[in-house]
């Protein structure tokens, strides 16, 4: 079985840890707890693949996140559907680490359950299209499309 290192990247409070919890433990907590550093979880995807999911602390200028990205097989970019500024964070990350553009990736547009608070425009889709090829409207809370998104990433890695 091959282990694949998957890195979750995005601004703080977009729901990276919650998405991993939903995918790995099928669990969700409303309580927000900032991740400092990195948490690592594993999940067997199929008989050939095991995902080693690196849940990396929300990007901030003072964070030394680069050591965590070393050797990544794929990236999951996470943005908050209710907070468009979280897309700008991805721009900064890619400016800082342009090598990420060559790695297979998907983007999770998270918090899709907060329908009344979603602030989305077509321009954001265009922005994300420059960063990754596949986007999924996910909800760590309801589980909507979380598994679909991870499976799509696995498909890219085949």
């Amino acid at each position: 079985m091959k282990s694949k290192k998957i890195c979750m990247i995005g601004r703080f409070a977009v729901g990276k840890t919650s998405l991993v919890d939903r995918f790995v433990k099928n669990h969700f907590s409303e309580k927000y707890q900032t991740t400092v550093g990195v948490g690592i979880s594993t999940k067997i995807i199929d008989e050939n693949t095991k995902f080693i999911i690196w849940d990396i602390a929300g990007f901030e200028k003072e964070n030394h996140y680069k050591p965590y990205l070393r050797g990544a097989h794929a990236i999951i970019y996470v943005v908050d559907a209710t907070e468009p500024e979280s897309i700008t964070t991805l721009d900064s990350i890619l400016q800082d680490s342009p090598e990420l553009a060559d790695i297979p990736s998907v983007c999770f547009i998270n918090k899709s359950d907060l329908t009344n608070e979603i602030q989305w425009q077509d321009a954001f889709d265009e922005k994300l299209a420059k960063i990754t090829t596949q986007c999924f409207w996910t909800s760590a809370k309801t589980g909507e499309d979380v598994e679909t998104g991870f499976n799509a990433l696995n498909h890219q890695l085949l």
Partner: protein
Amino acid sequence: MSLPNHITEKIHQHYQASNWCLITLDQNNQIVQINSKASKELNIKNQEQDIREALPLLATESLNESFFLPFYNHDQFVYDVHFIVEPKFKYLIMVPIDLVHQQVQYKQQKAHIEQIEKIRFKTLLAALELAQEELINANDAKSFYISALSHEMGNPLNAIKGYNNLLQNNAIEINKATTVIEKNVNKLNQIITQALDYDNKNSHHNKSVFKPHQMVNELINDFKLQAQQKSIKLSNQMDKGLAISSHQTKWQQILTNLISNAIKYTESGSVTIKSIIKDSHLFIDIIDTGCGISDEFQSNLFKAWSRERKSEAKGNGIGLVISKMLAEQLSADLLLLKTSPAGSTFRLKFPYENIVSRKHILLVDDDQDCLALFEYYLTQARHHVTTANNIDAMAEQLKSKTFDVLITDLNLGESKATEIFTLINNSAKLKIVITANPTTQITEQLYQTGFDLVLSKPLNQLDLVNSVA
């Protein structure tokens, strides 16, 4: 096999710690030693275990080079991870940093929550600003709307007041004055209806066919008093035969505003309203011999609240804005064609397809009175009308000529128009039948026969002329 001194010293110096997890690997990445803390906290039971399997942290690492990972969260513990490759052995050192982690996490969590609140506040503020802007715009629109309404009502009110004064001074015949007053009361009524329509976006008034020449004549009559006061000659040079299919009330408002402005800004001379058909367009020019419009003012001409103070005329400068707006609603354009100190020409440019073309109509009815009335209605709208008063005369016409339109009564003496429908169908492009008994069944049958339109008697001029247009 113990940790080399230089590494131990460094860790001591950096962390002030002496208790850490230590796993020693050989060059083949096999565990050769594991201390009790590592065994307990990382749950590695024996040295046989594959280190990559046992520690997901290392699962995808080549283990051929040194690396450092700060703040690695493993279960309830947090470590700084140092993987050090030395000539003989490789060392995985995991220094517990729980206290530091707690402090950093507390600080960051606090900062993040503050930042989230700031973002929420910013979003809320932006939404409030947007709502305020929308309110201001709505308020401006309302102000404009009220001013436009009062402006539009000004002209008919002026005519009513003027003719009422003439009546009071016995300076006009009662009949003449009441005709003008009634007409302007109707105009006011139309403006109010249109205002209500404007407010109700679902309401649409249908187009109708009318003659601009006649409309201009009526407007000239309304403005006669104002023009006479300045000795201005009002001249109607519109094509008498011209009929158009459009929104009559809007046309009336536009022309009222343009003629009113022309009189307002002309001290002597004339105001001429003239039609030209050219290049697939109908042009209506309003030509005055007034003071002209300055170069600077021309750019603001169609903007609300702008009025050049070159005349003693009163007004708020809204008339042109309203006229332009109404023209756009009619798919027309309003522009200043030319201006000089000798006068100005405003031009309305209207698409040709709305001009009612002259059609050759075969009109058939066995009732002579109806035939004469309908013929009058249609010729008034410029159409060329041939009449027939029985089915044989109709057949005779259809055999020798083709017509743009056939309008026939269903019952023609003992016969019915449907009896010769094949002939009708071959010789008329548009086939209209009139019935005095428009039941659903009869109407459906007539449509099934092939008639394009079924009209019912009694029939007024507007309905008849519109059906042909």
